[in-house]
């Protein structure tokens, strides 16, 4: 299921009539992107023996915020379910600590190593795992091609397409606002690929909609309080803002609080579009405070271990596997809220 709820998007509250100068205001949700045809399969990566049980390791880059916690939890739950032993390290948002973590994991020679890279540039250490004969599976972010080769240095990478997420957010916003208004955008952690890519997808798509004017963009570091402070300041300087795009749900919640504090009604005076798909966000769609949310599913566990088992069994595993993300809005939020993380 590609989460294609596109056609029902018009149900968003208060949607104005589509402005003529906004090409995407009436377009359907572009949906998930598909992996390019002929994605190579992993051939030269270290092999994995087929066993009843495995000892695996997972290097998480920062175990905070609901999203990453859900991701870690999902990995741990799935390992437990399968009866595997799993060791988790937390790099606490520090690239070089993650490299050190991975090296110390390698030293303990797990059967397989899962890595949620802090940045794209931890590739060299992935190569070290290969030298040690340990197959590596990347999840939620990838590493730079220059440093580590997919299918050789690591088996595969299971990711979301962040550019596409940004694009889908722009479409959803265009639809909800009818293609006119002033927008402020709140970005996630400086330099992270999710922040960079979502921004790119969002801004590129917004170019097709000149009626939506991006009046301010600020880095809110995925922090709720910071997003709240910034939104307050921005709303004061730009009282005519009508929409907010928050790259992540925590920032969206901060923005909604700021909108309320400014005496305006979120979902009515100012429309909020966000990404991640947390329970809290879905609930606020149900409550009418948020108009749309592009999922970025943190529950990698089942998929990751399934891929690992396939690889051990000698099946062909493509070197890039795209996660399927859904678009939530008033039409379906209530249905999914209970399952959200």
């Amino acid at each position, binding site marked *: 299921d590609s989460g294609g709820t596109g056609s029902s998007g018009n149900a968003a509250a208060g949607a104005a009539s589509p402005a003529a100068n906004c090409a995407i205001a009436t377009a359907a949700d572009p949906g998930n992107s598909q992996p390019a045809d002929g994605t190579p399969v992993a051939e030269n990566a270290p092999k994995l023996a087929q066993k009843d049980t495995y000892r695996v390791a997972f290097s998480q880059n920062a175990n905070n915020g609901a999203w990453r916690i859900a991701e870690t939890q999902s990995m741990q739950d799935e390992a437990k379910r399968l009866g595997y032993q799993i060791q988790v390290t937390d790099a606490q948002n520090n*690239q070089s600590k993650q490299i050190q973590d991975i090296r*110390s994991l390698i030293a*303990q020679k797990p059967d397989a190593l899962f890595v949620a890279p*802090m940045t794209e540039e931890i590739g060299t250490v992935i190569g070290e795992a290969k030298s040690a004969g340990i197959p590596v599976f990347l999840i939620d972010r990838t590493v730079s091609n220059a440093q580590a080769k997919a299918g050789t240095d690591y088996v595969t990478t299971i990711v979301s397409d962040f550019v596409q997420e940004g694009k889908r957010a722009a479409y959803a916003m265009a639809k909800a606002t009818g293609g006119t208004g002033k927008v402020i955008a709140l970005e996630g952690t400086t330099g992270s690929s999710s922040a960079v890519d979502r921004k790119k997808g969002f801004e590129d798509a917004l170019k097709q909609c000149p009626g939506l004017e991006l009046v301010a963009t600020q880095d809110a570091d995925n922090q709720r309080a910071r997003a709240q402070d910034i939104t307050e300041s921005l709303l004061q300087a730009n009282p005519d803002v009508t929409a907010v795009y928050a790259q992540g749900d925590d920032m969206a919640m901060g923005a909604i609080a700021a909108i309320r504090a400014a005496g305006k009604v979120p979902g009515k005076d100012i429309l909020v579009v966000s990404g991640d798909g947390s329970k809290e966000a879905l609930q606020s769609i149900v409550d009418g405070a948020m108009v749309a949310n592009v999922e970025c599913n943190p529950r990698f566990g089942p998929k990751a271990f399934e891929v690992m088992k396939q690889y051990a069994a000698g099946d062909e595993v493509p070197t890039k596997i795209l996660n399927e993300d859904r678009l939530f809005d008033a039409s379906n939020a209530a249905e999914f809220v209970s399952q959200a993380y």
Partner: protein
Amino acid sequence: MSAATADVATIGHRLALQRRGTVAVLVLVVLLASLRYGDAFYSGINLTSYFDDAVKYSLIALGMTFVIMTGGIDLSVGSVILLAGVAGGLASPHGAVVAVLVGVGTGAAVGAVNGLLIAHSRLEPFVVTLATLLWARGLGLQLADTQTVVYGTGTLQSLARDKIFGLTTGFWLMILLFVLAAVALKFTPWGRTVLAIGDSEESTALLGVPTRLPKFSVYLLSGALAGLAGVVLGSQTGSVSMDTGVGWELIAVAAVVVGGTLLTGGVGSIGGTLAGLLLLQVIFTIINFENGRGGIEINSYWQNVVRGAFLLVVVLLQTGVGRGRKKS
């Protein structure tokens, strides 16, 4: 906060004892760990990664040792690592030498600004370097356009991975610099003057010894070493990400103090800093290993708690040692 004259004799002994204590604890911890984790603990790759990881912290801790010996502090080193790492990375396409020069030069330049403001304009080190922490990071982000900066896979990276006697160049660089620094502290007029300034800057000046230049120089040195650390980091990991260096200044300060350098200046040890740093770092490694045992699952949140508790235990032991002596 000058110590009473009568305490002076004990302070020296106390800190010397503390240094030995730090080394002893380090050895003990490593021994226990290798008993518990066996082969894996000291197997080649882990030792290498342990020391490699220590290099960058050790470089800023080394600079910090001299700064603290003058009674100052340099909170900006974490940001300087980022800035210089970025600058070095941008210069890396022009070759390893250029990258190193640019990185160290950038760090030295920031250090010089700190030094001028502190030594010449006599502003408080804590606040000056706190401000530098802000602007140097901002400048680094700006320079990198907030994107991770990649180091070209050239000489620099192979240099970082080359091994001499089984350990990487980074390790030997660290050892070399610490030996040089120890010699400089004990055997150069500069080193002695640095200590004198930390003891009493006013007295040093009234004794007719110029204080500005030595004071300036420690910040310059600290900046330059942080710059070097930035390039080393970049070449070891192939890139410098935007989160680099956040909070590292406090790791360095902790290492320096655990190593037996007096935070108020005047007494210090280079070897102690290295021991202190390796000790703090070994704790990280052990926590990771302990997680792997599956026995007690140390939630990563507990890591910070454990680190804080460990710091507490070390400093408490140290004061205990100091008190015990005083009574005898």
